[in-house]
């Protein structure tokens, strides 16, 4: 058993970025110790391991910390190249495409979703909605291009982009209950909708995605808190 490797993941159960790391570890069949952080009372270990950002996830491998979810996922793929699935393809051009779309998810898709749900003005939220529509349309095209008719961005098996997008699945599922929106609307983005079902059902994925009702609860608490703050601020 691969017990000689000391792998620790510092995380928070609701974080989509932490989920990316969990997905990568799970898809590669790696054992690790998971440490749940209280982000309002961050551990000494977290602060010491990620002094620059003080954020989760942090992967600590044999005592050495790796930070930033996309860096962590690539690290897992490279450090454990012989184990389980290869997340990045072997061809340099396909790798470039995978990295391009992973960057797109973080630079365009996520910010547009954040704007839609947390924009401070009606105008901002409407802008976010427009930008989100463009972003998912582009991703639908990406899935078509990368999968070439196969089930995943990575082809027959899930790969890098599947993991990077997959980290968002918990919140994608929660979104319908919270905002009445399915970000991967089967009518508009049929490939993404089917991908979400398929990826979510994988044996390595299903147990790792946080429960939707718990995410909804956290989001509602957060919304209530923000509303109270706003009401208090306007007095």
């Amino acid at each position: 058993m691969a017990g000689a490797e000391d792998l620790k993941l510092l995380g928070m159960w609701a974080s989509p970025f932490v989920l990316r790391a969990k997905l990568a570890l799970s898809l590669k069949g790696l054992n690790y110790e998971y440490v749940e952080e209280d982000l309002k009372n961050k551990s000494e270990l977290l602060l010491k391991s990620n002094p620059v950002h003080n954020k989760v996830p942090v992967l600590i491998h044999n005592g050495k910390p790796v930070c930033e979810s996309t860096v962590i996922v690539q690290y897992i793929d490279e450090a454990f190249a012989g184990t389980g699935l290869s997340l990045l393809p072997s061809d340099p051009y396909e790798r470039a495409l995978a990295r391009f779309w992973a960057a797109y998810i973080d630079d365009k898709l996520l910010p547009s979703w954040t704007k839609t749900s947390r924009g401070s003005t009606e105008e901002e939220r409407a802008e976010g909605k427009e930008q989100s529509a463009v972003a998912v349309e582009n991703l639908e095209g990406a899935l078509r291009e990368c999968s070439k008719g196969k089930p995943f961005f990575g082809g027959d098996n899930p790969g890098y982009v599947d993991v990077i997008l997959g980290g968002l699945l918990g919140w994608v599922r929660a979104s319908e209950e919270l905002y009445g929106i399915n970000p991967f609307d089967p009518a508009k983005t049929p490939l993404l909708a089917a991908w979400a079902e398929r990826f979510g059902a994988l044996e390595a994925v299903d147990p790792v995605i946080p429960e939707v009702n718990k995410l909804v609860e956290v989001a509602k608490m957060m919304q209530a808190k923000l509303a109270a703050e706003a009401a208090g601020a306007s007095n």
Partner: protein
Amino acid sequence: MAAKEYLKLLGIDVSPFAIGVHMALVMKGVNYEYIAEDLSNKSELLVSSNPVHKNVPVLIHSGNPICESLVIVQYVDEFFTGAGVPSILPADPYERAIARFWAAYVDDKFFPAMAGIVLVPTEQKRVQKVKETSAAIELLEEAFTVCSKGKAFFSGDSIGYVDLALGSLLIWIETIRRMCGLEIISASKTPRLAAWAERFGETAAAKKVVPEADQALQYGKKLQAAVSAAATSKSK
């Protein structure tokens, strides 16, 4: 011999992202054709090669377009290998993770703060950007000590991934100094980076690729004028 048309780089002279890619190609010793774009009148080739962002740089390799500067640099690093060909990223997975972390920091934290100094419309916002830039460069000064381990560059004896990410911004760091007198890198506040910046500028690749700071100054003034005009028309 592999003709130039196999590799085409679409860019603009003063784009730090294009500069980074130019340097990577020069370091690898590959031939390529450079096409200077006019961003106010984008070419058919640019728009069709980068339909998602319609921006530079784009590297077109045997007809296949690759976009996003750090993605392109990694592609160039992984495609062009062999005896005597320098590596841009190190071989060890952990060192690669550290290099990617700091390149991402330059891209996500340092660059937006620095660019903001020129691009934000109000004095108040500019002051905020100056603060953020200072904080970021201080961290990078510390990072340099850790990464370089006493050697000349972030990557060691020769330039690598993080050197390219930060080094390609030096022309704009100089431009900001000329435009508003602000010294982002200075011998007094960031002595190690100041010395590194000089060494970076002296490398063969930088000498070949990086344009005169004057060119960036002209561009910067135009950008600032556009920002002021937009701010003025908004407040009418």
